[in-house]
């Protein structure tokens, strides 16, 4: 229902003048995310229903012959691999469902705080569409260990590596946006830059795992844990933090504390790398994942100091989150009053009073005249032009 709401609103309830190519990249990212959700969750539901039937009414969709306490159960003929296929057909798009909104937020924040238009707006849109499209064709790369045909593995491998192309387009466009910008390093910007950093660091190990010959030795090791958490887990969370610091003034009418924000960022950023980068090393040293007891295996003994280091880093990183929580609630009541547009941003939400009235625009319909990233516009008194500023000259 959420996806349905997002898509319908985006397609049919845009403001006057808000063409698709004038939408902020945040909206594009949520729009594409909603499409992925709409297509992926139905398949997960089907798999979930089949699983429930296997567990509760004795069917054998996924359960093969099972012996429990020396007795054959009534199940036979099901395939756990069928479950894996259905699950990962949902599971891989789900990765993009988690990361695409972060990409949109990062684009928004990087442009605003670099005081430059986003580099290659259309390319960013098409790259997100390509990532969403390709995301439905690569689920098999989670299953290279399942004994699938090498030809299938090759196809999944090539398609997976193809996602590197739109991902690289986005990364270089983010760097191009910052390049030679008059960068304002406020907390939202720090987290957006952190997002790009984590996306690159976590993403670079993707092509390793996309190749069956490398994935097979690395798959059940900490290498995958490090890759996954950098690119999807923490990068997505950095997107959430960037969005929270960025839109907090609009939501609550007060600014968040900058000092606490910076402390939160640096401790989380360094802590994240301290937790997850060593995991790649552990993985290459054949340290298995999903083991609860590590002290019984002799060959893992020499790796225990790395585990201890990661554990300390995790405690410190968790502790840093309390700074965020305190900042959030303190600023909600005691933070300095925010102006209507404290970041000098251009998009529609910054044209409303802070905090916005119940219907957002106070009964006055906004009309859009410009793109969403009009920063550093030559000839203007300010270095930004709101989307609602009327046309000032050029005819197109």
């Amino acid at each position, binding site marked *: 229902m959420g*996806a*349905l709401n997002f*898509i*319908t609103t985006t397609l*049919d*309830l*845009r403001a*006057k*003048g*808000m*063409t698709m190519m*004038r939408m902020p990249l945040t909206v594009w990212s949520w729009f594409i995310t909603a499409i992925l959700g*709409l*297509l*992926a*969750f*139905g*398949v*997960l*539901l*089907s*798999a979930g229903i*089949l699983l429930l039937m296997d567990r509760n*009414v004795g069917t*054998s*969709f996924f359960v*093969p*012959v099972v*012996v429990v306490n020396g007795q*054959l159960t009534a199940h*036979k*003929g*099901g*395939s756990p691999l*069928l479950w894996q*296929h*259905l699950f990962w*057909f949902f599971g891989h798009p789900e990765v993009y469902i988690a990361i695409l909104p972060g990409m949109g937020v990062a684009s928004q924040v990087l442009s605003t705080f670099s005081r430059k238009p986003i580099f290659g707006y259309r390319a960013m849109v098409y790259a997100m569409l390509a990532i969403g499209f390709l995301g439905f064709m690569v689920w098999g790369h989670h299953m290279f260990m399942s004994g699938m045909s090498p030809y299938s593995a090759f196809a999944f491998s090539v398609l997976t590596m193809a996602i590197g192309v739109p991902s690289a387009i986005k990364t270089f466009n983010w760097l191009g946006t910052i390049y030679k910008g008059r960068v304002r390093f406020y907390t939202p910007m720090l987290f957006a830059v952190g997002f790009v950093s984590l996306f690159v660091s976590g993403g670079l190990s993707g092509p390793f795992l996309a190749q069956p010959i490398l994935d097979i030795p690395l798959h059940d090791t900490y290498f995958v844990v490090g890759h996954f958490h950098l690119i999807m887990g923490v990068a997505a969370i950095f997107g959430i933090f960037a969005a929270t610091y960025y839109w907090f003034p609009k939501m609550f009418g007060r600014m968040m504390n900058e000092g606490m924000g910076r402390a939160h960022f640096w401790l989380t950023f360094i802590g994240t790398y301290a937790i997850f980068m060593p995991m790649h090393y552990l993985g290459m040293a054949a340290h298995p994942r999903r083991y609860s007891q590590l002290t019984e295996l002799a060959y893992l003994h020499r790796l225990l100091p790395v585990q201890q280091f990661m554990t300390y880093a995790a405690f410190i990183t968790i502790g840093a989150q309390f700074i965020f929580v305190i900042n959030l609630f303190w600023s909600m009541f005691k933070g300095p009053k925010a102006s209507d547009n404290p970041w000098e941003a251009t998009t529609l939400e910054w044209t409303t009073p802070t905090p916005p009235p119940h*219907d957002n*625009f106070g*009964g006055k*319909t*906004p*009309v859009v*005249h*410009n*793109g969403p*990233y*009009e920063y550093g*516009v*030559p*000839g*203007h008194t300010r270095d930004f*032009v709101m989307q609602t*500023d009327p046309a*000032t*000259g*050029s*005819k*197109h």
Partner: protein
Amino acid sequence: MSTLTPNSAVRYPRASDAGGGTPPTFGGGGDGEGGGSNGAFNYGERLRRARLGLVLGLTAVIMLFVGFTSALLVRKGLPSFDAQTNTYSRDWVAINLPWALLWMNTVVLLLSSVTMEFARRAITRQAALAPVKSIPGVSLGDETKFPWLGSTVVLGLGFLAGQVLVWRILVEHRVLVNSSPGSSFAYLLFATHAVHLAGGVIALLYAGAASWLLHKPVEAQRIVVDVAAWYWHFMALLWIYILVLLIIVR
């Protein structure tokens, strides 16, 4: 002075390019119920929006059945391990469905789709004539009002009752949900379709309530009936698909 992107043209998106429509209205909630920019209710836009929402919702339903279909095709081709003989063999056995009753249910469902379409057309006509009827002194004569919507509900419930009968016959013949992979899928597909169709019946009852209890204007009723009708037609189509699938794989 100029901006970096084309700025002068305020493009008022048209319905035909799937973009825009009027902006959100104010004071009446976010669904445009409060009226258009000229203060009048804009039911045309609301209808278009509701239909778009329906198409998206049906996309999710399609994906659910795509999941079931792919699972069925894969499961049918899988060998099953026989622990007694240590051999692999296909465990897919054809199941005997009560086809006569299923075809009768199909006829009932298709008939309900026809009555639903008549209901949709009738209320579309009423909505189109509503502004004319509101002019004092204008009378268009009384249309004969056949209860198409009620007929659809009755036929829909009849279909569901027929499906219950199918399941009872299957149980009597010891074809249970866990008897074989084929029977598992048959029960699964029938039940999932029935749940969705029951949702359609609820939507129709709401459409009726909108008319008689909530006293909504005929244009608002038309939106509910129109969307319910397309949903209902989709359910009929989905049922045909399920039957064809079961015929192919039996």
